[in-house]
């Protein structure tokens, strides 16, 4: 290759890397953060030792170790880009040894695109790439034992065992390279009549190594040979990125951003709607915003079980935690944890610590805090939340939540959210978030009798009427529908322009000019 050609190719490769890293950092940051949140890495020997219980220990260990830096999307983008670039370079070197320049370039470009396509799925972890990189690297090596005179014994097939142990499924890639190199070499050196022996050894080792170790790894053979798992290529999923971004901004308590992202979402869905409403509720504006989103999902009609998708479990965890039901928040956090790789999800471990701090189970909270204390990114968070060392604002928040949480000693039949909200309000009638979710659920179901009953019980009877436009509009529907007396109207409705609007609407029901009102929703949607 001429120097000019080399420089041109290097510049193109570098430009591709810059574009790719920029893409990950700018267009896919929430995917990277999701990877970081969906695992945990502890800086302890016993944690590292757990990686040896399964094949691909080096791929999984280094993958998880690097993934923790994804907490910074720019660093994450750089790591992922470099690993993909390394894989591509290794493939390019290997393929160039086998094919002519043109064909090898085409195949390398195809593989590079494939590697990038793998990364578009949120389920593709860095472990996968490290395993591929390790497998290809070992495939490029050649080990020989010198024999008499000029003869050498090629023992490269033993690399397959090492590759399986350290990189799992990538032993198949290592094998493929060893076989391809052997075949290629044989075509050049027709004198080696034992070339087939090398191929036979390689194939046998690739198949037999997982079979031999699958029992000690407690894996079925098919799973053992493909451990830790093969990624699937996909196109960029910007809809999922949007969802993750909304969830992340909520996690960072940036409720304005949550609402903004939800409102500008290219494809609004149940999850964006859920977080839009929950962020609104935390800003005391759920009734004000209930009709402002096209999709209406408060999460109050959702239950969770073993087949529930992970984002829905996350939603339920957030809803119950913010509403004050620590039992169900804990249940969702536990479920989310066990459905994560290695049964650990750092966001849920933080949440479990918070839940137990709120419920006053200090010993259990300390357990989770000790785990977080052994991480790279959350040790400070752990210290700030440790009883005795807690920051005043953290303590204040914990006490506020404790005041709102469910303290009744009883058991419930199921996870019917209405019951949960009622129980929370029985425990603490000042739980405005629970009250708004209860009333807004009634209104979305257009169950005016139940709404009136709940409003009476938790607002009027407690001398704390909640004068929100949405509730006033709904009460007008109820009062008009039941032919209530003037006294009743005076009792519930604050005289203002809304009454006049109601009369106007009554004369032109279904008029889209009133689409922001509950009256229109009640009649038309």
């Amino acid at each position, binding site marked *: 290759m001429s120097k000019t050609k080399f420089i041109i190719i290097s510049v193109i490769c570098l430009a591709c890397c810059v574009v790719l890293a920029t893409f990950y950092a700018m267009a896919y940051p929430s995917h990277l953060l999701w990877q970081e949140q969906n695992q945990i890495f*502890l800086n*302890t*020997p*016993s*944690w590292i030792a757990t990686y040896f219980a399964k094949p691909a220990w080096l791929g999984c260990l280094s993958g998880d170790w690097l993934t923790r830096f994804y907490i910074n999307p720019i660093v994450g983008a750089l790591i992922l880009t470099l690993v993909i670039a390394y894989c591509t370079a290794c493939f390019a070197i290997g393929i160039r040894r086998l094919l002519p320049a043109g064909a090898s370039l085409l195949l390398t470009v195809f593989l590079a695109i494939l590697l990038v396509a793998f990364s578009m799925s949120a389920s593709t972890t860095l472990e996968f790439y490290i395993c591929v990189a390790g497998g290809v690297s070992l495939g490029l090596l050649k080990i020989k034992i010198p024999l008499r005179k000029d003869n050498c014994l090629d023992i490269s097939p033993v690399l397959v065992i090492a590759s399986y142990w350290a990189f799992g499924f990538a032993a198949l890639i290592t094998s493929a390279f060893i076989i391809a190199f052997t075949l290629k070499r044989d075509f050049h050196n027709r004198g080696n009549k034992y070339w087939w022996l090398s191929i036979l050894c390689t194939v046998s080792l690739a198949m037999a190594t997982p079979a031999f170790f*699958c*029992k000690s790894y*407690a*894996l*079925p*053979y098919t*799973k053992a040979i493909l451990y830790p798992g093969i990624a699937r290529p996909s196109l960029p999923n910007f809809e999922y990125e949007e969802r993750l971004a909304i969830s992340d901004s909520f996690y960072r308590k940036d409720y304005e951003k949550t609402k903004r992202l939800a409102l500008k979402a290219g494809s609004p869905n149940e999850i964006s709607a859920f977080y839009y409403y929950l962020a609104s509720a935390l800003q005391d504006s759920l009734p004000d915003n209930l009709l402002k989103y096209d999709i209406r999902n408060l999460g109050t009609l959702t239950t969770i079980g*073993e087949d529930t998708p992970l984002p829905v479990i996350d939603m339920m965890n957030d809803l119950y935690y913010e509403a004050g039901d*620590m*039992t*169900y928040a*804990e*249940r969702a956090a*536990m*479920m989310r*944890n*066990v*459905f994560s790789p*290695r*049964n*650990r999800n750092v966001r849920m471990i933080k949440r479990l610590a918070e*839940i*137990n701090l709120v*419920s006053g*189970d200090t*010993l*259990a909270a*300390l*357990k989770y805090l*000790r*785990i977080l204390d*052994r991480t790279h990114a959350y040790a400070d968070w752990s210290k700030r939340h440790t009883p005795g060392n807690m920051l005043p604002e953290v303590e204040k928040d914990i006490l506020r939540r404790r005041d709102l*949480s*469910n*303290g*009744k*000693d*009883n*058991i*419930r*039949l199921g*996870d019917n959210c209405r019951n949960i909200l009622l*129980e929370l309000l029985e*425990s603490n009638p000042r739980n405005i978030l629970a009250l708004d979710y209860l009333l807004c659920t009634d209104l979305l179901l257009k169950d005016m009798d139940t709404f009136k009953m709940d409003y009476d019980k938790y607002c009027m009877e407690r001398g704390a009427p909640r004068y929100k436009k949405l509730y006033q509009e709904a009460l007008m529907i109820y009062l008009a529908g039941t032919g209530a007396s003037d006294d009743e109207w005076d009792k519930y409705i604050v005289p203002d322009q809304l009454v006049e609007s109601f009369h106007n609407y009554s004369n032109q029901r279904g008029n889209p000019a009133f689409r922001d009102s509950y009256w229109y929703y009640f009649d038309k949607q």
Partner: protein
Amino acid sequence: MKTYLYIFIFAILASCSKERPPHMAPSADSPDIFPDYTDVTIPAGIAPMNFNISGAGQVYVKVTGGIEGEMESFGEWADFNEKEWHLLTERNIGADLTFDVSVKDKNGHWKRYAPFVMHVSDIPLKDYGIVYRKIAPGYQTFSKTGIYQRELSSFEETAVLEETAVEGKCLNCHYSNRGRNDQFTLHIRGKNGGTILNSGSNLTYLNTKTPETAGNATYGYWHPDGRYIAFSVNKIVQNFYLDKEHNIEPWDVVSDIVVYDSETNRIITSPLVATPRCETTPAFSPDGKKIFFCLADSVSMPGDYRQLKYSLCSIDFDVKTESFGTRIDTLICADSIGKSISLPRPSYDGRFLMYNMTDHGTSPIHHADADLWIMDLSTGESRCLTEVNSDFSDAYHNWSPGGGWFLFNSKRRDGMYGNLYFSCIGTDGKATKPFMLPQRNPEQYYDEALHSFNAPDFITDKINLDMPHIRSMVKNNEIVNVSVKK
């Protein structure tokens, strides 16, 4: 070049050298060790009782045997050499081991603490190890669960069966015949679920649900002859508490007692133990002539959950006629004590019956008030095992086949995760202070673990389960239906 080599060798040797504490008198303070192994009684040959000391930069421990021998440990925590430890405990059976602990803090200051002792019991614990299920506490989830075995004399833990081997299945409790590694049952839940039966000679996959019985075989206990297994057949429901303190309450919609005959593949029933009331957690007496079990009147659940209280009962069982006795004896009446009893477990020598007592319900691991109680079977007198109980749930006890020693699950460390503790009953009938299952680095292990040790039991030998065979049976649904003896 040689100079560099010498420097390198010197650096290696220097890094390997252990600093001994200076000579100083012990203070009056006791070391704050985890786990709390002070004054515990241990069996000879147990795995090294390693411990951590909070905030310690370096720990030096000198262990001196009451009869003979001594050993030392240097490091970040007390980490004893396995061979030396075994030798020391074997040489000091019936005597004390004295632990002289010195700690260097982060500032480089040494402090020598008042010595503490561990007693080496003269009651041997000769079992190979223990078996347990590891699962996230309190929640029905099908993710990574597994049945594991742990050697008692070392830290070696191996999988008996992991969820990864039978994907998507929930692995339930393992019940062996007096700790035998070749006679046990193991439930697998989920699609194609059933009960693995290892009867000593072959492995069978059983469908224990029959048209005549209320549910699948759940809680089991082997007859000493190895042919019969007493099961309760349960339909279990879980409800959540409103407050976080209690968390979850599993209860039986229906539960009856049956005996399974592994030779004829039939179930033996009796109308006395298959009633609208709830009969559960059976256990054969050591002579096999009696079945202990728990019995509760049906109450309106979940509303009256506080009224669900189980009595401790027994019924005769005759292997010759393969029939239950004609009457139920109530050993402890729930109404009279206002409490609920669960998990009766007779010691294999027939001296004692250990059981759980809680305010209500049938699942003691979910009740912080769950305590272990013991009944002297010769007198019928019961007492609370205050020596071993804690403020948190203490449950899932089982006896060593060799006698004396028992293990149980306790949530005393954090109120959330059940860990394993061991104790033994001496000739005076008193239990020794329980000790936590030793680990290489206990603080790190127990801090990082997010599982409970569920349904633990002793095993006399290592279990070697043919996992591919089990996977094939489950995958291909090679299930054998159980019938009811007419």
